[in-house]
């Protein structure tokens, strides 16, 4: 029973519909535990004071924003190669969630950096690359909406996702290069993963990451099922006319 078994839309709905509430429940409890733990029971950072508590939102959200686009890239490739409708619809379902994660990463990153940079928005290379990623999400979703025929839309958005990914990575380094020229990087590396975090902060952070990951999964499963149902409605109506 290979994984492609789930590519069949009807089977996908049948298997995921009961799952979604569970995954959602677990993810929300993870989030609550992680955030409460991080917010109430961890000491302040000696240099940054209490703003370090924003780490529990910023790092997981930033991680999910990038993983969401990566997942969409894989789903687009699967659609182009194996023509499984579910993967194309999963890519479409993941985009708004990825965008929300990017917005969260942007807001928390800006607020977190505010005390150090003294301004509400500093063109820090990392934050700026998330701003560019946000634009990519916007363009991707707009293209889906603009095209009526589902298969054509799936194909075109997949091509855009492939090309977009190359340029997203390119922009990531261009922004890195561009900001070196203006002013020195931040004292505390805000980027995902590079943080050398003492373990008292790390465990709640890990819990939050799991929470965000599961939330993303739950939302994608739910929205993909919705896209599959929408497509089924369209197909049925086309037949009944």
């Amino acid at each position, binding site marked *: 029973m290979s994984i492609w078994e789930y590519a069949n839309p*009807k089977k996908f709905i049948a298997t995921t519909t009961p799952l979604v509430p569970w995954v959602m429940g677990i993810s929300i409890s993870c989030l609550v535990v992680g955030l409460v733990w991080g917010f109430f029971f961890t000491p302040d950072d000696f240099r940054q004071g209490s703003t370090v508590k924003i780490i529990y939102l910023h790092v997981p959200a930033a991680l999910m924003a990038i993983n969401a686009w990566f997942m969409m890239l894989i789903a687009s490739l699967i659609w182009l190669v194996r023509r499984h409708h579910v993967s194309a619809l999963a890519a479409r379902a993941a985009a708004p969630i990825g965008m929300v994660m990017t917005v969260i990463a942007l807001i928390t990153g800006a607020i977190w950096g505010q005390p150090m940079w003294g301004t509400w928005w500093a063109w820090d290379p990392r934050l700026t690359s998330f701003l560019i990623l946000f634009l990519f999400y916007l363009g991707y979703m707009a293209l889906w909406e603009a095209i009526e*025929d*589902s*298969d054509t839309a799936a194909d075109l958005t997949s091509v855009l996702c492939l090309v977009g990914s190359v340029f997203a990575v390119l922009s990531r380094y261009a922004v890195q290069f561009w900001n070196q020229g203006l002013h020195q990087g931040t004292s505390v590396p805000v980027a995902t993963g590079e943080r050398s975090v003492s373990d008292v902060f790390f465990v709640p952070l890990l819990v939050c990451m799991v929470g965000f990951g599961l939330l993303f999964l739950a939302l994608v499963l739910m929205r993909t099922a919705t896209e*599959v149902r929408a497509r*089924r409605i369209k*197909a*049925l109506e*086309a*037949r009944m006319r």
Partner: protein
Amino acid sequence: MTLNVSDLTVVRGGVPVLADLSFSVAEGQALVLRGPNGIGKTTLLRTLAGLQPALKGSVDYAEDTGAYASHADGIKGQLSVKENLAFWAEIYGNSADESVYEAFDLVDLKDRIAGTLSSGQKRRLGLARLGVVGRKVLFLDEPTVSLDGFSVKLFARWLSEDHLAKGGIAVIATHIDLGIEAPELELAPFKAAPDAASSDEAFL
């Protein structure tokens, strides 16, 4: 060198329109497609020309010998008649020789800017493109739309004498009688059942 089609199913917007089509057209033969509007003549011709993939079945004719022409004849208004034809000739690696202009009575319009032509003349220029392209298998979608009687005869003569006589093949969707004896294919019986196999099938 013949065109044969075996149990072809063509799709428009994810919904199959024609199914289990099988026919073949020998050299020097034409085939006229008949059927009510919206039956799928254009979709069929586009699939035969390779512009869109067929859902099922196969279309085979010699590689690189097909040409498609629809009522949107790709004429550039700003270019002159000669420039338009010379362009298409160069694209297909031929040269626009005089005989084509005579065949479509365009000799005196050679240097006229295409934009200033009447719709009938413009249609003749669109058809003249087929003469210049020099392709053996033609897929023509309503070629004689907005053509006056005289031009229709011109086109029919070119088709039978310059194209079919030289071993060409043509599949034409038209309502007007072209005055050439050619087998007709009524498409109505091949209308696809609505829930026949299609890309939506996975969702049904």
